C-alpha cells in the first residue's frame, strides 16, 4: 500500500494537506488536513458588534461578501431590524455578483487545468484567426522557457482527454475568463464600493441610495455577463463534458446535502429563497428535509481539540490541544460538523439538488434539460460526483446571472414608485442574540452572535469548507471530501491528477475553515442562543 501526501494542495484558497492510501491503483482511505488558523472568534470578543460584518469579511477574501451579509443578518436578527425591500434586493445583487465571479474563477482558473492540457493546445490546427493568435502567443510563451503558473504540471497525463482543438479553445477562454471574473466583481463594487471587501451592507440594509447612473451601469454590465455565460461558459461545459462523462461517478461521497438557502425573497421565508433551504439524505430524491440550526453538532474526536461529546455550536465547547499529525487519532484543525449526526456536502451541487427536489422551477428546468442532454432523464443521482459538481456550478452561475437582471428591474420598479428606502435604523440592545444562515458560493454558512453590554460577548461561525473538509467523527464516519476520495482510481501515484479533480470539485476554501479557536488559551467557547 502506498501513501501519498499532497501538501500544498494548490488552486484552492488557503492551506490544505491531503493524504491518501493507494492499493491496487485505487484510493483505499483518505485524510484532509487544515494547516493554518487565525482565531477570528477570539478577536471579535469585546468589540462593537457593528464592526463584526467588516472583520468577518476578512475570514475569506474569495467570499467576503457572504461572510459580511451573514454577519449583518445575525445582527438584523439580534437587533430586530429588517432591511427595506430595496436593501434586500441590493444585498442580493452584491451577493449575486460575487457568486458569478466566484464560479467563473473556479471553473476556469482553479478547476479547468485538471481537465485542460495547456501544452496539448500547441498541437491544435485552428482555422479561426483569433485562435491562431492565441496559439502563437502560447507557443512563444512556452518557448520562452518561463512557464510561470503553468510550470511543472501534469501535462501529457493520460487522463487529459480533450482534443488539442478543444484544449486551445479552453486556453483562450481561460484568458477571457480572467477579464470576466473581474467584470463580475465590478458589479459588486458598483453597489458595494469595492470588491473584495464590500463596504455598504451594515445591519439594517445598505448605506447607499442608487443613482440613475448606478442603475444604468448595472444593467449593461449584467447583460454583458449574461451573454458571456450563455455563449461561452455554458458552451465550454458542453464541449468539455462529453470527454469526461466516463468519470461521472468519480468522487460521489455520502450523498447527504445541506443548503441554508441564499438570495432573500420579499417574504424573508428561507424556503422561498432563489436557492431554498433544505437537506437531502443518502441521495434519496425527491425527499427534502427541513434544515434547522438546532440539528447541527460539532465533533472534535479527530481535530486537535480535547475530546468532548458532539455539541450544538450554540453551546459549543472548544478546548484546543495540538498533538501533532497522527491520521489514526488527530490530524487537522477542522472540527467535524454534522446535521442529524450525518456529514453533509455543501456547495452549488447541494443547493441545486435541494432546489431541484423542492421544485424550484428554474433549477428544475435547468437540471432536467441537463439530465436529458446527457441521456439520464429524471435521474439526478447521476449528478453525484465530480462532473455533477462542475455542472451544478455552471448552471447555478447562469441561474444567478439571470436573477440579477430581474432584481435590477425590481429595484427600478420600486424607485419609480417613489420607494427609495434602503436602510432601517436600529438601536443596539444591551443584551441580544441572533443567527444568520446564508450561503457562500462554496456552501452553507452560519454566524451566531451574542451581544452583552452592547459589545460582542461571543461569536461563532460554521462555514462551508468546514462541512466539506472536516475529518472523521467519533463513529469513524469520514468527512465529505475524504469519503469522495475513496475508490478514486489513480493511474500514476507520482502525478495524482485524479485526486486533484475530486478535491477541486468541492472548491475548498481553507481560510474559512480553520479560524475557530485560540490553541494557547484553551478557552471554552460557551455560547447560548435562546
Amino acid at each position, binding site marked *: 500500500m502506498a501513501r501519498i501526501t499532497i501538501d500544498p494542495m494548490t488552486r484552492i484558497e488557503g492551506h490544505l494537506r491531503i493524504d491518501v492510501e493507494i492499493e491496487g491503483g485505487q484510493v483505499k482511505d483518505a485524510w484532509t488536513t487544515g494547516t493554518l488558523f487565525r482565531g477570528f472568534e477570539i478577536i471579535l470578543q469585546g468589540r462593537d458588534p457593528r464592526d463584526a460584518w467588516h472583520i468577518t469579511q476578512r475570514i475569506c477574501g474569495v467570499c467576503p461578501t457572504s461572510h459580511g451579509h451573514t454577519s449583518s443578518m445575525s445582527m438584523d436578527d439580534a437587533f430586530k431590524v429588517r432591511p427595506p425591500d430595496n436593501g434586500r434586493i441590493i444585498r442580493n445583487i452584491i451577493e449575486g455578483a460575487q457568486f458569478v465571479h466566484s464560479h467563473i474563477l473556479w471553473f476556469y482558473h482553479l478547476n479547468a487545468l485538471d481537465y485542460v492540457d495547456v501544452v496539448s493546445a500547441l498541437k491544435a490546427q485552428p482555422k479561426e484567426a483569433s485562435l491562431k493568435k492565441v496559439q502563437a502567443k502560447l507557443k512563444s510563451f512556452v518557448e520562452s522557457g*518561463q512557464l510561470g503558473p503553468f510550470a511543472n504540471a501534469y501535462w501529457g497525463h493520460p487522463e487529459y482527454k480533450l482534443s488539442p482543438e478543444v484544449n486551445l479553445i479552453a486556453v483562450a477562454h481561460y484568458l477571457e475568463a480572467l477579464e470576466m471574473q473581474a467584470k463580475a466583481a465590478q458589479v459588486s463594487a458598483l453597489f458595494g464600493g469595492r470588491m473584495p471587501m464590500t463596504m455598504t451592507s451594515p445591519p439594517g440594509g445598505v448605506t447607499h*441610495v442608487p443613482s440613475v447612473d448606478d442603475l444604468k451601469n448595472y444593467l449593461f454590465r449584467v447583460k454583458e455577463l449574461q451573454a458571456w455565460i450563455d455563449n461561452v461558459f455554458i458552451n465550454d461545459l458542453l464541449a468539455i463534458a462529453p470527454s469526461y462523462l466516463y468519470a461521472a461517478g468519480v468522487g460521489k461521497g455520502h450523498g447527504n446535502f445541506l443548503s441554508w438557502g441564499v438570495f432573500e425573497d420579499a417574504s424573508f421565508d428561507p424556503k422561498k429563497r432563489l436557492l431554498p433551504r433544505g437537506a437531502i439524505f443518502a441521495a434519496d430524491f425527491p425527499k427534502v428535509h427541513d434544515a434547522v440550526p438546532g440539528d447541527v453538532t460539532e465533533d472534535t474526536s479527530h481535530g486537535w481539540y480535547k475530546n468532548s461529546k458532539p455539541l450544538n455550536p450554540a453551546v459549543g465547547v472548544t478546548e484546543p490541544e495540538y498533538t501533532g499529525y497522527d491520521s489514526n487519532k488527530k490530524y487537522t484543525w477542522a472540527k467535524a460538523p454534522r446535521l442529524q449526526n450525518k456529514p453533509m456536502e455543501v456547495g452549488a451541487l447541494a443547493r441545486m439538488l435541494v432546489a431541484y427536489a423542492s421544485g424550484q422551477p428554474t433549477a428544475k428546468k435547468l437540471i432536467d434539460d441537463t439530465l436529458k442532454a446527457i441521456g439520464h432523464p429524471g435521474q439526478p443521482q447521476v449528478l453525484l460526483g465530480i462532473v455533477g459538481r462542475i455542472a451544478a456550478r455552471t448552471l447555478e452561475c447562469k441561474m444567478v446571472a439571470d436573477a440579477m437582471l430581474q432584481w435590477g428591474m425590481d429595484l427600478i420598479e420600486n424607485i419609480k414608485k417613489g420607494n427609495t428606502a434602503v436602510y432601517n435604523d436600529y438601536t443596539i440592545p444591551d443584551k441580544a442574540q441572533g443567527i444568520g444562515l446564508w450561503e457562500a458560493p462554496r456552501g452553507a454558512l452560519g454566524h451566531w452572535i451574542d451581544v452583552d453590554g452592547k459589545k460582542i460577548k461571543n461569536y461563532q461561525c460554521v462555514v462551508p469548507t468546514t462541512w466539506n473538509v472536516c475529518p472523521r467523527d467519533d463513529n469513524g464516519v469520514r468527512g465529505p471530501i475524504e469519503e469522495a476520495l475513496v475508490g478514486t482510481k489513480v493511474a500514476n501515484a507520482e502525478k495524482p491528477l485524479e485526486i486533484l479533480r475530486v478535491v477541486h470539485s468541492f472548491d475548498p476554501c481553507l481560510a474559512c475553515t480553520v479560524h475557530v479557536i485560540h490553541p*494557547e488559551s484553551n478557552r471554552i467557547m460557551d455560547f447560548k442562543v435562546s
Partner: protein
Amino acid sequence: MSKKDEVSKQFLEALEFRGINRRDFLKYCGATAALLGLSEGYGPKIAAALEKATTRQPVVWLNFASDSGCTEAFIKATYPSPAEVILDILSVDYNETIMAAAGKQAEELLEKSKKTGGYILIVEGGIPTKKGHGMIGNKEMLDVFKEMAGPAVAVLAIGSCATTGGVPAAKPNPSQIIGTSEALKKLGISKPLVNLDLCPVNPEYLVGVVVNYLLLGKIPELDQHGRPKMFYGQTIHDNCERRAHFDAGRFVEKFGSAEEGLGYCLYKMGCKGPMTWSACPKIQYNARTSWCIKAGGPCIGCAEPGWTDKFAGFYERLPGVTIPGIGGVEKGADSIGTVAAVATAAGIAIHAVATAASGRTKDKDEKDGGKK
C-alpha cells in the same frame, strides 16, 4: 528594420491577440505614467521599456496567514490586466492560488526559485510566530519566509496582513502574527521592502510599484512606514469627492438618507478619511468603478499601519478632530455649516491636525524621504 523595431513588432503582435492595439497600449502606458505621478510624456518611455524587455521578471508569491483577498484583488487589476501581468510582464513562478502544479511538483518549483534567486518576493498575509499555527509543506511559515527572502531582490508586502499583521493580528493576536518588516528584523535579513497597506491591496498600487521597478530598476520613494509616497502621500480627506460638503458643513446623519443620495460628507457616520493616507479617491477600485466613500460606506481606515485596532469602532466618530477657532472636539465639525465663511480655513486646519495626529508632517515626510 532595426532590432528594436522587430522587438516592437513581436510585442505588438503578442498584445494584438488579446485584442489590444497599439493605441490601447499607449493609453495604458499613459495611465501608468499618471499613476506613477509622472507627466503624460513618460507614457511612450514606459511603452519602450516594456517592449524591450526580453525576459520577464520572476516573481515568487507566498501566502501566509491571509484570506487570499489580495490575490483576489490582484486579479481585478485593469491597467494592465492580470492576463497581461502574468503572460507578458512578469513570470509568476510560484503562487499557490493560481499555479497548475501541486504538492511535490509545487515544492520543486519553490526550490528551483530559491536556487536561481533574483525574484521579487510578494508576501500576502502575516506570519504566525507560534509553533504549529501556520505550516506549508510541513514547514513553519516563518521558516519558509526566511528561506525565500534571502535570494529575493526585493520584498513587496501587500495588504494589511503582510505589512503589520492585519485583522488576524488584532487583539489579542491569537497566533502571534507579525508583519513582513518585523519578520525581516527578527530574522536579521536586510532587503529593500515596500509596504502596501490596505485591506485588500489596491491592485493598481501593486502593478504601479512593479512597473516602477521594471522601468527604473529600483523601488519607489517611500514614507516613514515604508509605503510609496506616490500612493500614500495625501489623506483620503484631501481628495475626497464629498470634501466640499464637509467644508460646507453638510453631513449624512443616517445611511440611505436623502443627504447620502446628495453625496454629503460621511464624517459623522464614522468616516476615517481625515486620518487615512491613501490615494483611494483618485485611483478607486475595480477599474475605477467605485470606492468605499462614493458608495456611501464610511472609510474604515484600512490603509493605515496597525489597522484594525487603530480604528476599531468603525462607525464611531473619529476622535480628536479639533477645529481651532470654532472650539471643541467633534462639535467643531457640526458647527462648520453655520459658519460658512470659515469653512475653507477649517478644512485646511483639519488637514493640519490630522497630519499632526497621525505623527506625520510634510517636513518629516520629506526629511525621511525614501529611506527605510
